[in-house]
């Protein structure tokens, strides 16, 4: 394994009944990078996430996360979905520390860390609010804080902003980039939105179904920090058009 890789997949494959959800996949993810995965439904991206998070076992292959074999084991990645999955009976603070509670007791250092995150990322005034009092964007922030608070180096984000309106979504994307830069985590990000993938990432993986596989692997060398101007730059448009063509070629369009 190269020293800069945090995650190394070798020959990972998965078949359900007679459908090849994921054909043998090799993948190296660089420590601290932001990698997006785009592709139509059935392309195996959710299967890949389920394998990485330990929910399902691959049929073959090996996964090495920070030099540990993690096949079939849970509790080693941060994980976030489109649904914020905040629990209504816990406050913002209680939701951010949910990971610690699920592993045992919430200690003072867990609380301190959670309060630190909340204060730094605009939730400081809402620590003792119940989720029902928060807007959709704020709820997703809390969900991301909860993911960060598990203190895993690798974060799996599965369309986290898919349910937000365009305006909020853009704010959240910039906010996510700030959090990512500050905390130096490694992010794997599933999305349907090609703009989102290119805007956020260092690297975009394009996947295709039947059998699920990676058909393109693009470096995104757009300068950071990325802003509104990034979205209208020619380089952005070029990358976006390449991804779109890849996606549509694969669909036979």
């Amino acid at each position, binding site marked *: 394994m190269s020293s800069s890789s945090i995650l190394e997949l070798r020959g990972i494959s998965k078949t359900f009944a007679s459908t090849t959800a994921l054909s043998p996949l090799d993948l190296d993810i660089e420590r601290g990078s932001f990698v997006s995965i785009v592709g139509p439904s059935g392309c195996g991206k959710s299967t890949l996430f389920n394998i990485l998070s330990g*929910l399902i076992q691959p049929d073959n292959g090996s996964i090495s996360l920070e030099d540990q074999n993690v096949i079939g084991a849970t509790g*080693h990645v941060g994980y976030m979905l489109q649904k914020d*999955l905040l629990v209504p*009976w816990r*406050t913002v603070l209680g939701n951010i520390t*949910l990971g610690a509670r*699920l*592993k045992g007791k919430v200690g003072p250092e867990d609380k301190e860390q959670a309060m630190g995150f909340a204060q730094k990322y605009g939730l400081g005034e809402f620590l003792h609010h119940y989720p*029902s*009092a928060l807007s959709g964007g704020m709820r997703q922030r809390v969900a991301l804080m909860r993911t960060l608070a598990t203190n895993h180096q690798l974060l799996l984000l599965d369309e986290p902003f898919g349910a937000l309106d365009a305006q909020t979504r853009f704010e959240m994307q910039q906010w996510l980039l700030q959090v990512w830069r500050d905390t130096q985590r490694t992010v794997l990000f599933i999305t349907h939105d090609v703009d989102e993938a290119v805007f956020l990432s260092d690297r975009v993986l394009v996947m295709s179904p039947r059998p699920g596989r990676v058909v393109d692997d693009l470096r995104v060398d757009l300068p950071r920090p990325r802003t509104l101007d990034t979205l209208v730059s020619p380089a952005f448009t070029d990358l976006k058009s390449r991804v779109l063509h890849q996606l549509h070629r694969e669909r036979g369009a």
Partner: protein
Amino acid sequence: MTKKKLLLNIFGPILSVVVLLGLWQAIVVWGNVAPYIAPKPWDAIRAVTSNWSTLAPLTWWTIKETIYGYLVGAFLGAFLGVVLNKIPLMQRVLYPLLILTQAIPIIALAPPLVMILGFGVMPKVVIVAWIVFFPVTVSVLDGLNHVDKDLMTLAKVFGANSMRRFVVLEMPAAITQLFSGLKIGATYAVTGAIIGELAASSGSSLALYQRSASGSLDAAGVYGTTLLMTAIGIIWFLLVVGAEYLATPWQRRSTARQWRRGAKPVLTNN
């Protein structure tokens, strides 16, 4: 809840009870109803207060039967709900039995219970528990079955074992449902105690007191006892509602209560 809403919540029910009593009074007075058919409401209430020294110990017994039976039924009901949810096989084995328990006419249950348990407090407790456990089981089972699957998946990914998932997520998630079962049970609990007293009392009880009042055409005593029994049921129901209020602050507040100095709670308008 705003102040206005709070006042409405308190005075609304009082107003409707007063109107009801007024209607009763009007029918009895203007309809020339004979006193052995229906007393005036005030006479019914006085029949209770003037005989309070006799009624107080009987009332206390009924309250005890209700509370004991209710607690047994509630815990048993919640436990069964969890068992049915956690052990799918049990749904096949136990569910038909549970339906069977509720198909037995509750009055027909009393004679065998007297044979087994005698005339003491036990058969009444069993009857109350018998009635109360079922809605609690059904509601807890329903609550547990509807816990967000994705939330449970998330907890698994976070590395939580099944015990932690249950305590931290499933139990609190089912609490709203639990209370709807508890409230239904609360309205039935006193009914169960009185049925038990009617069918399984040898000495004195509220139910027998009413029966003897009926035998001597003491309408005020009969109606008064009914009011007394109803009051027990209502008070118990309100206590359960109060427990729900305390146990589920997130359903009415936007912030958690902070016990530290200087922190102000924010009230929502609902």
